[in-house]
């Protein structure tokens, strides 16, 4: 392990200073966004009332209740879901050694979606808190399937095998989901709104339901920087360094199930975050996952929260779902960053 840390330690100080500057700037932006998120919404509430609701809560005042029970949980959920998706994407891209790997492409979201659809059609589930367990079950089944097929054989789970079994699992899940939806208009009506990814109407109950899983997943992800560093060196080198690659991948798999399952359960399958945040984090932080993971932890919530706020404002008083705005807001930024990197190299 010592060898790895010397190999992968950011050698030049300027890179480090730049990373710290990025992290600081992002943290400040995040605090600003949290404030805006509490102040802005379909209901116009004056600033002093919002402040009062937070510091001097009076349950008899409607606006206070609204801030406490709608905006605060929603804002916290945006932060957590963002962090979860960003970290899950980073872990998956490192394990699959592929910039296209993310919970969407590798079938985890599709597994969660399939189970939610089955919950709607077979068990008549309508409540958001009821979706959670189905989403979790689906994410778990998908991860086990993708990893199980990818890991068969002597050489274990190679990145190419994981990528292919993920793509195949995704195709199978989506096919089954569509079959159900096409034959059941009511389920389609319910599902199409969930499927886009939204944070509206999420109250404290959803937050407390997913918090333990997201919390555990985030801690696990942040602690796995070293493991991911060894895995990205390739299996042979990792094994040579004494790393048990199968154990490392299982740890990563558990992390992904916790993060994706909980994030998807809370907000629906939001696609773009897990795909786009990791490359940006790697551009800023370099190859060391002990730095990349904290970057992703801060960048992703900025994207999700900003998108959620924008979604509340652009069609006011109606709302556009966060899953739609994320890509419209983040896509151009992402492309611009990819282009900038191209010029520098």
């Amino acid at each position, binding site marked *: 392990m010592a060898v790895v840390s010397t190999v992968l330690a950011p050698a030049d100080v300027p890179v480090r200073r730049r990373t710290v500057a990025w992290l600081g700037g992002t943290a400040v932006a995040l605090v600003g966004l949290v404030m805006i998120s509490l102040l802005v919404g379909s209901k116009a509430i004056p600033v002093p009332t919002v402040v009062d609701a937070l510091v001097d809560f009076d349950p008899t005042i409607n606006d206070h209740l609204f801030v406490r029970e709608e905006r605060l949980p929603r804002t916290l959920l945006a932060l957590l879901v963002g962090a979860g998706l960003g970290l899950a994407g980073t872990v998956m891209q490192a394990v699959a050694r*592929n910039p*296209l790997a993310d919970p969407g492409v590798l079938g985890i979201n599709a597994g969660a979606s399939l189970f939610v659809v089955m919950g709607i059609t077979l068990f008549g589930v309508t409540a958001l808190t009821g979706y959670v367990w189905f989403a979790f079950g689906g994410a778990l089944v998908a991860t086990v399937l993708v990893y199980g*097929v990818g890991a068969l054989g002597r050489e274990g789970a190679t990145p190419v*095998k994981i990528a292919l079994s993920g793509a195949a*699992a995704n195709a199978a899940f*989506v*096919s089954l989901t569509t079959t159900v939806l*096409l034959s059941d208009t009511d389920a389609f009506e319910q599902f199409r709104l969930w499927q886009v990814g939204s944070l509206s109407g999420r109250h404290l109950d959803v937050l407390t339901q997913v918090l333990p899983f997201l919390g555990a997943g985030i801690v696990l992800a942040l602690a796995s920087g070293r493991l991911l560093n060894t895995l990205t060196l390739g299996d042979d080198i990792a094994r040579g360094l004494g790393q048990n690659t199968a154990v490392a991948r299982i740890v990563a798999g558990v992390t992904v199930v916790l993060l994706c399952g909980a994030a998807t359960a809370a907000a629906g399958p939001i696609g773009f975050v897990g795909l786009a945040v990791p490359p940006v984090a790697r551009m800023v932080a370099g190859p060391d996952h002990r730095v990349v993971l904290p970057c992703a932890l801060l960048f992703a919530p900025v994207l999700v929260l900003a998108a959620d706020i924008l979604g509340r404002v652009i069609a006011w008083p109606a709302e556009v779902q966060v899953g739609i705005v994320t890509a419209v807001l983040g896509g151009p930024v992402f492309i611009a960053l*990819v*282009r900038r990197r191209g010029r520098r190299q």
Partner: protein
Amino acid sequence: MSALAVVRRVRRRARLVSVLLAALAAGVFLLALSVGTATVSLPDVLSTLAGQGSSDTNYIVLDRRLPRALTGLLVGAAFGLSGAILQSLLGNPLASPDVIGISAGAGAAAVTGIVAFGLGGPGVAAAALVGALATAALMYLLAWRDGVTGYRLVLVGIGLAAILLSVISYFMTRSQVTSAQDALVWLTGSLNDSGWDKLVPLAVALVLLLPAVAAAARALDLMGFGDDTASGLGLAVPRARLGLLLCAVALAGTATATAGPIAFVALLSAPIGRRLARDGGPALLPSTLVGAVIVVAADFAAQHTPGLPRVPVGVLTGAIGAPYLLILLARMNRGGHGG
């Protein structure tokens, strides 16, 4: 065994796989012509195809079933080939028109047409083709920085795909549930309104594109050794890459315009084709044939599975292709050929 003998054996295997796949495609194709509400026996199908059918079999086979089966065959082949080109061009087993935004571009244009302008048939097809080509052009321009690398093209592609998918989602959540369901059928991919009028443009496009791909196939082989080696061997890499990319996009775009972005055919065909051929190359011909088999077989299953409502073909392409790829991966992994 000498190296030459090994090479010969590998080539023989790849050729044999192609022949078997072609036979399989022909078999499924004939089955689709023969079975239905009124079953026409196989000899009758053959004699009808040869121009000696009765007026009944002429109507059933030539007018009703042939356009649909041919469309399935050609669309599947186009998707399979397009995916095989993109995956080896971009060096990524997850690359396909679905993932890098080509299908999303076609889809966004088509859904906008269906939901916002109430377009049908030819209008949707034209919108989809324009959407696919425009997305590809934009992707190439945005990825251009003193040249284009596969990695940058992929990243720009997923950025564009995400934005375009948002456009689709926006219309899907904002529209009436019935027109959203129409759009879902289109987005899944369907052969329901195949006819000679839609088949002819597709066939013309393939007649133009297939020779172009065949001519560029050697360049693709060379680029498999890496850009530097390929240039060293005298290949004009940027031009070859642009040409191959154009072919792949045109194939996917025309196929999408004809039948919608039939899900997962492009993504699944190439890995299956490569694993069957096992010659280490891009396996263009096997992948093309696998695509054709998947689409015709899935459409047949979609129409004739007892107990299942008649679903669009795209619903079952994933269900038919994906388990097969999973089994193939599992089997070959055990033999140590999976990676």
